[in-house]
């Protein structure tokens, strides 16, 4: 393989032959290139059911995320919070807030369980993703099996409510004034931090 790559290197792009670094081997790329995208790019072959995911979740995830994905202490809740995004206390979960299911698969695969990252196999990641869908009422059948083949069939609900940064039109034109003298007739303190008792020593 290396010999082939070297020859390829030499004849096809000679300018690189004396340059910095080396060609990445396919097995090296396979080892590190674990990301997936909303269009399914990067998803490996595999599958897992809600019921399988529930069993893994109880052992690997529930201690922090709670049995029903409600979140323990300050750990993130994964489920619930529907119709809260426009309230004073929005609850941002996979079901209420996340725009893409692929993000769940990618994050579980790359960073979970917390403290033992990249220890789950592909089928376990599919199963956990299926269970998180179940916790969020995206599927209601414990036998539902999530796989590469049906991954794009059940999108999350909040995708349409995200839009690109628009500060350039909605904010910047309005933040240009700088009054210097007699800018107000009176000043009152309206809110205090004291008494809240939340500041560390």
């Amino acid at each position, binding site marked *: 393989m290396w010999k082939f790559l070297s020859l390829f290197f030499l004849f096809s792009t000679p300018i690189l032959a004396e340059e*910095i670094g*080396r*060609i*990445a081997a396919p097995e090296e790329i396979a080892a590190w290139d674990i990301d997936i995208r909303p269009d399914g790019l990067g998803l490996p072959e595999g599958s897992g059911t809600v019921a399988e995911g529930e069993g893994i979740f109880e052992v690997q995830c529930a201690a922090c995320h709670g049995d029903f994905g409600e979140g323990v202490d300050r750990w993130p809740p994964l489920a619930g919070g529907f119709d809260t995004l426009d309230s004073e206390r929005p609850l941002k979960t*996979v079901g209420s807030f996340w725009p893409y299911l692929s993000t769940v698969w*990618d994050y579980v695969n790359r960073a979970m369980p917390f403290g033992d990252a990249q220890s789950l196999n592909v089928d376990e990641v599919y199963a956990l993703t299926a269970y998180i869908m179940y916790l969020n009422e995206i599927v209601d059948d414990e036998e539902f099996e999530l796989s590469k083949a049906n991954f794009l069939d059940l999108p999350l609900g909040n995708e349409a409510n995200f*839009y690109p940064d628009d500060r350039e039109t909605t904010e910047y034109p309005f933040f240009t004034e700088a*009054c210097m003298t007699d800018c107000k007739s009176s000043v009152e*303190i309206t809110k205090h931090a004291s008494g809240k008792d939340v500041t560390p020593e």
Partner: protein
Amino acid sequence: MSNNSGPSRRKFLTTGLAAGVAATGARAGDPAITDVQPWAQVLGKGVDERGYGVPSPHEAHVLRKSVPWLTAEDTSSINFTPLHQLDGIITPNGLAFERHHSGVAEVDPAEYRLMINGLVDTPMVFTLQDLMRFPRHNKVYFLECTANSGMEWRGPQLNGVQFTHGMMHNVMYTGVMLQDVLAEAGVKTEGKWLLAEGADAAGLSRSIPMEKALDDCMIAFKMNGEALRPEQGYPARLVLPGWEGNMWIKWVRRLEVGDQPWHHREETARYTDLLASGNSRRFTWVMDAKSVITEPSPQAPILHGKGPTVITGLAWSGHGVIPRVDVTIDGGVNWHQARVDGPSLDKSLHRFYFEFDWDGKPLLLQSRAHDTTGYVQPTKDALRKIRGEVSNYHNNGIQTWSVDSDGVVENVEIS
């Protein structure tokens, strides 16, 4: 209280001199002068006592600190730079705030690799030594966490500039241009996005538009002249001038070129801006102009009583330099142009001062940054009017400190 718009050096000196004379007349002799101090008599420590120097024991209280109730535990948490105890524009390496998602990755530099793959002509691997063979550049940039001041959206909460504004540091990076490294692999024309990924246990990943990657981004391996600290991404991190800190991937191990963004966790579930409407802004990368008075502030009260008083603070913008900072001492009735002192560098912290004679009456202090685009730092009310109170991120509103007649300072909001 005088409302002099600029510092009057003569007045400052005259007042100071009068105070000095009064003080001298009040006591027979200052023991700090009349007694022989131990350091003036006996030999101190020799060279090599400390191969790596540390601050004076008298500075042992100058520390990064966390807010324990903020996060579940300390490996996925944040601490804060003690801005009230620093001056100038450079943050010392050991005091630069930390934010980790799965703790500090202790990377062995001999085992460090950077991979470039995806839509490139040749997927490549670089060692740390390889990276150091590209042309090096030195740049001072601020890094501000998108959540800096995020706990203050609904109202003043934390009584200290360290906690309201300390998710920020400003150091000189030495590194190589990302465009030079990418060129080695050869970005294909359809390659419009870059996925940057860390080697930590979070595998922290962000999508970066290629336009930014090829503009001013760096792969840095030094901060303030020495190797990056482990908590800042040793041995190599990304630098994205003016953009939110979460994107400055630490322990960077892989760059993948693609034709679309990846929409990973840190750019969907987190680091998006939920508005009162229930809709959310995403890809809000640039950190807008902001400033804060670091002293006096709740952790740095005025201890000297009335008379000559120095107000100092920091101003910065992800859009460029800071041509002007205004300061008010009466809660925004009248403003005065502050004096920016020290280097005015692109996308770097700027240090400002405002000197005045304090009459000992209560003060309401604010600062207001201008940047090169004509943008003027807004009030918190102006931001809340547009965004609501649940955005968490990108709070660049004007900060108010209330100073009472004893010099005690409180975090407040005013009408």
